[in-house]
């Protein structure tokens, strides 16, 4: 296809109309992916550009919003360490894809495959005979000074080879159009899951363009990953764990997403243990063998016995299990060494010697300062270079020589001279630009493409495309998720139609029918239990606040009477978080109660606020992500929006309504979509237990209030438990304590009653995995049976009179307190028996040499 000129595209019409898409400056200092010159669109962009043009800026803007909405609903996030609130940031995806022709991609791909093979050979050698060092192809200091060279891993090579299962490279295009490698990622490359999610979203938002453009699919990459790991797993019929540092990690979304997509068990360090020389997953059913680990934890943190001693991110003994050959870890422990940028300076020669080939995909020109001549060059040319430490170290960042003052430069040079082995100088690449849809027009932004490879028995397979990231501003040099910025789907445009692959990985062998769905890791059981509790606690809180707000709005004159404050106190008691309604200064604070009320609902930083509990729901949901149905997960993500920072009482009332419905839909979807395994059981027990505690707390408050306010009080209790209609249908008369107590305490047919919750808990507890053989009762069984019996033998007859005495109050108070205590004991027993196989782990004081 000949290059057409700008004037020939419909774009020009927009320009004439002053339309949004028209303004696209092309700088001569950088290569632009779309335009070869101002106004000249590269052939492989023309079709897409016409399509965007046909959509127009308004429609593109609408689809951009749709992209963000889908990402938000799918819970796609990227955690930012600097966020003081520790909140997750929604993943940002541009609506315009990055485009490459399959012809050019083939060249890049060959280069990537060669590079992966080369790094694989280097890793195999450095953790084995180290011939490269002894033959003078690598300086010993380059390896021995790097903290990524883990001596305990030397000789612990995985069998069978390959060394490197996964490889990723950050690619940049120089102004002359050549592609260069900026970084090698050999440790635990992140981004493949985001690339997949980007693809799914964009294919949905731009369906016809995606179909017509004949984009290469990503699924083959993930299928190869699965089959490669299956082939390398030393013990068949074991599970594969995806080891994550946990929900605080910046790319935790991806860990959960990939685990679910690849059907691996998402595990944190605490979930795993090494016993009998092999790796196990702790589940509520006991220990289950693990044969392979895909790690997203840096290798230095992967064994507190032999590597970083303080680490809790992996079980002690993992490295010994690898040595024993009972588990394979991808990538192997120690592979972080290959991320050393100093290696780049030596790759061309090593490629010649080991492969007999020239390096097809050049690195950014790199000088390792441990070499005297290279050091001299770096010092002389420091203004034109990027200075990087060879390993990430606190206090040493990547520095752009051009941006330094004279003093800063001198002190940097001094530092380099003092530790020459620890630095490289790299040529500063003016990254190529690609169009990004900003506000209402296309703007060029510097980009970096991260590409992903996985090993196969005959070499490496590259994901066609990858994750494109663009700099947050036009003149950017640095592209990083932490610094903010946008991602893009990357389309390799097929020249010929491609056969369709399913995105659901085809199984390596026929599926054997099973109904268990896997054992529940203890940590997941714990999270599901608390998900159940937090959902219920938040819903209960929302009902209390709703009721209070309604009363306040109805009776402007009688604001915040005793009963309102009593219920707010009840809320705080039941959540054991003691808000500021109670205690010293209570009266004064209730006078400014509206402000306090808002803070109690919305202030996430205040323990016990509604927002605080809601955040706990979302966190527990995230931690148990791959045990929830997709719809339930989306419903949980939506909750995040339900408590906006509103200003007026009526707006607040509205958001509480939304929240109550939202929580109900989470409960509903969980009940409807989760298989009745142990995972569901723990969530259900958590939910019922919390509801019973909550109802008991409301009833106790009702009984404690002065009896002259009885009617109002019991009305509120019924409303807060959503039982007003049931009551009215049964009793035409005015609300009366005895009847309310029967309905909310004893009536096992009322799904809001304490009795009903206890029966449900009993049924679930009886089905939990048993450690003691029948007929012995487990501790949980004994507690719940005793609680239920206590309730059932309670005689409420004398409460159906309208006259109460102090003795009656006291008896009831004791009953409520007793039931609550039992339920809390049940919660503790459950967590002791099922959630924490986890004892506190400690390092022994190492013996030191103290002789004289």
């Amino acid at each position: 296809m000949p290059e057409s000129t700008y004037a020939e595209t419909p774009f020009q019409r927009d320009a004439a109309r002053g339309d949004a898409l028209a303004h696209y400056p092309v700088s001569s200092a950088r290569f632009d992916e779309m335009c070869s010159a101002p106004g000249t669109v590269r052939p492989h962009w023309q079709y897409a550009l016409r399509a965007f043009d046909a959509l127009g800026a308004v429609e593109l803007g609408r689809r951009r919003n749709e992209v963000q909405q889908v990402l938000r609903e799918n819970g796609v996030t990227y955690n930012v360490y600097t966020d003081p609130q520790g909140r997750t940031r929604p993943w940002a995806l541009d609506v315009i894809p990055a485009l490459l022709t399959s012809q050019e991609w083939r060249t890049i791909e060959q280069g990537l495959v060669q590079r992966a093979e080369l790094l694989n050979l280097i890793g195999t050698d450095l953790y084995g005979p180290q011939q490269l060092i002894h033959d003078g192809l690598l300086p010993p200091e380059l390896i021995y000074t790097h903290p990524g060279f883990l001596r305990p891993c030397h000789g612990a090579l995985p069998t069978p080879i390959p060394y490197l299962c996964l490889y990723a490279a950050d690619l940049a295009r120089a102004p002359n159009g050549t592609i260069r490698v900026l970084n090698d990622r050999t440790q635990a490359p992140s981004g493949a899951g985001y690339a997949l999610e980007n693809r799914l979203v964009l294919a949905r938002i731009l369906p016809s363009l995606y179909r017509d453009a004949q984009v290469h699919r990503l699924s083959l990459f993930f299928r190869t990953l699965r089959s490669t790991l299956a082939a390398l797993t030393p013990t068949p019929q074991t599970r594969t764990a995806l080891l994550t540092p946990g929900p605080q990690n910046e790319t935790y979304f991806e860990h959960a997403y990939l685990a679910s997509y690849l059907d691996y068990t998402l595990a944190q360090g605490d979930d795993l243990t090494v016993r009998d020389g092999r790796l196990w997953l702790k589940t509520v059913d006991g220990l289950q063998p693990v044969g392979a680990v895909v790690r997203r934890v840096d290798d230095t943190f992967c064994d507190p016995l032999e590597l970083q001693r303080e680490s809790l991110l992996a079980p002690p003994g993992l490295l010994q299990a690898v040595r024993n050959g009972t588990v394979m870890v991808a990538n192997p422990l120690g592979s972080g060494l290959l991320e050393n940028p100093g290696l780049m300076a030596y790759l061309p020669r090593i490629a010649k010697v080991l492969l007999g080939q020239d390096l097809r995909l050049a690195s950014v020109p790199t000088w390792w300062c441990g070499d005297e001549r290279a050091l001299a060059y770096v010092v002389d040319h420091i203004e034109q270079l990027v200075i990087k430490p060879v390993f990430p170290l606190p206090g040493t960042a990547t520095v752009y020589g051009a941006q330094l003052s004279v003093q800063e430069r001198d002190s940097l040079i001094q530092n380099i001279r003092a530790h020459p082995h620890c630095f490289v100088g790299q040529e500063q690449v003016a990254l190529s630009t690609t169009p990004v849809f900003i506000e209402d027009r296309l703007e060029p932004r510097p980009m970096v493409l991260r590409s992903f490879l996985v090993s196969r028995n005959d070499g490496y397979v590259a994901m066609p495309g990858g994750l494109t990231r663009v700099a947050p501003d036009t003149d950017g040099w640095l592209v990083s998720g932490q610094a903010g910025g946008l991602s893009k789907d990357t389309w390799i445009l097929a020249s010929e139609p491609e056969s369709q692959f399913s995105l659901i990985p085809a199984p390596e062998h026929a599926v054997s029918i099973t109904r268990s769905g896997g054992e529940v890791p203890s940590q997941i059981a714990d999270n599901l239990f608390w998900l159940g509790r937090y959902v219920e606690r938040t819903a209960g809180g929302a009902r209390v606040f709703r009721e209070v707000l309604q009363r306040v709005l109805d009776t402007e004159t009688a604001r915040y009477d005793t009963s309102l404050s009593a219920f707010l106190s009840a809320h705080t008691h039941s959540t054991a978080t003691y808000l500021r309604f109670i205690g010293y200064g209570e009266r004064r604070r209730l006078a400014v109660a509206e402000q306090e009320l808002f803070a109690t609902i919305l202030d996430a930083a205040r323990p016990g606020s509604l927002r605080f509990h809601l955040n706990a729901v979302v966190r527990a949901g995230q931690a148990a992500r791959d045990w929830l149905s997709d719809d339930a997960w989306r419903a949980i993500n939506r909750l995040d929006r339900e408590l906006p920072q509103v200003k007026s009482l009526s707006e607040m009332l509205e958001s509480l309504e939304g929240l109550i419905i939202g929580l109900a839909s989470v409960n509903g979807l969980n009940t409807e979509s989760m298989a009745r395994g142990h995972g569901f059981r723990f969530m259900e027990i958590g939910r019922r237990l919390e509801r019973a505690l909550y109802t008991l707390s409301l009833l106790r408050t009702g009984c404690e209030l002065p009896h002259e306010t009885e009617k109002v009080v019991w009305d509120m209790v019924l409303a807060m438990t959503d039982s007003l209609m049931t009551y009215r249908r049964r009793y035409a008369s005015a609300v009366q304590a005895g009847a309310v107590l029967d309905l909310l305490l004893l009536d096992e047919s009322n799904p809001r009653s304490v009795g009903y919750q206890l029966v449900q808990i009993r049924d679930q507890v009886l089905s939990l995995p048993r450690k003691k053989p029948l007929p012995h009762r487990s501790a949980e069984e004994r507690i719940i049976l005793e609680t239920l019996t206590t309730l059932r033998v309670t005689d409420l007859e004398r409460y159906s009179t309208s006259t109460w005495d102090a003795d009656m109050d006291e008896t009831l108070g004791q009953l409520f307190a007793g039931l609550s205590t039992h339920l809390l004991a049940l919660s503790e027993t459950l967590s002791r028996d099922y959630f924490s196989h986890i004892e506190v782990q400690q390092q022994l004081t190492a013996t030191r040499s103290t002789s004289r």
Partner: protein
Amino acid sequence: MIRYRVTHVTEYRYNASVSQCQNEAHLLPRSTPQQKCEHGQLRIQPSPAAYQDRKDFFGNHVTYFTIQESHVSLSVTARSEVLIAPAAPPPLRDSPTWEETRRSVSKDTSHAGIEARQFLLDSPLVHSSAALTAYATPSFTPDRPLLEAVADLVQRIYQEFTYEPEATTVSTPLGEVLDHRQGVCQDFAHVAIGCLRTHGIAARYVSGYLETAASDDQPQLTGAAASHAWVSVYCPGQGWIDFDPTNNIIPTDQHITVAWGRDYSDVTPLKGVVAGGGSPVLDVAVTAQRVS
């Protein structure tokens, strides 16, 4: 040949039970050109569920073991017999100058040279610093023979530092040892290593034992001793030569080598991770005696 019988007992007593422990030990002596280890064995109580021996990156014996039954104490007894061929101390004046050594080692591409070059670099517990350089400088006068310079440095450490077990712990940083001039053998070894490396001399950490009684007319100090540590210096042509800054001597026939590495962290005699255990109490006893 001198034959030593070595017993090294390490005992942890816990005030809460331990359900599982995993340990790594550098307790069995390696063989070297001057020494041969016979009948090395570990006795572990309670008996371990898994026990594996291997050689580490530096060629030392390492033992991994795990105990999976609930226990309230752990006792590890290393016994071995070690044969030592006493060597005459090297003539200090005959070595090349330290400047010459510094030049040649950094370019040495022989197998031994490449191995030695890693001991020029910073290691987990020994980071080069201006303070180390400054402390060492008086010993490294121009054109001084390497071994003479090292002997002088070792003597100065011996004279200027006080042996004080309470002054440091396993986690006291080197800079603090240098400031306070107090510590134990492993601290002095680290100081010496840091001083040597900042002057371009390859130095490694040696963990081992000192004879508990030198001769028959001295009383036997049974069980009173602990394990010992000293340094070794790479001298091209002569290989590795040991120096003991704690006693200001060049080891000949009273030092039994167990393991060597870049610093203590590479050859920790016994370390472990336990589940439970409360606050453990540690006891160590060593005897290293000649047998005829």
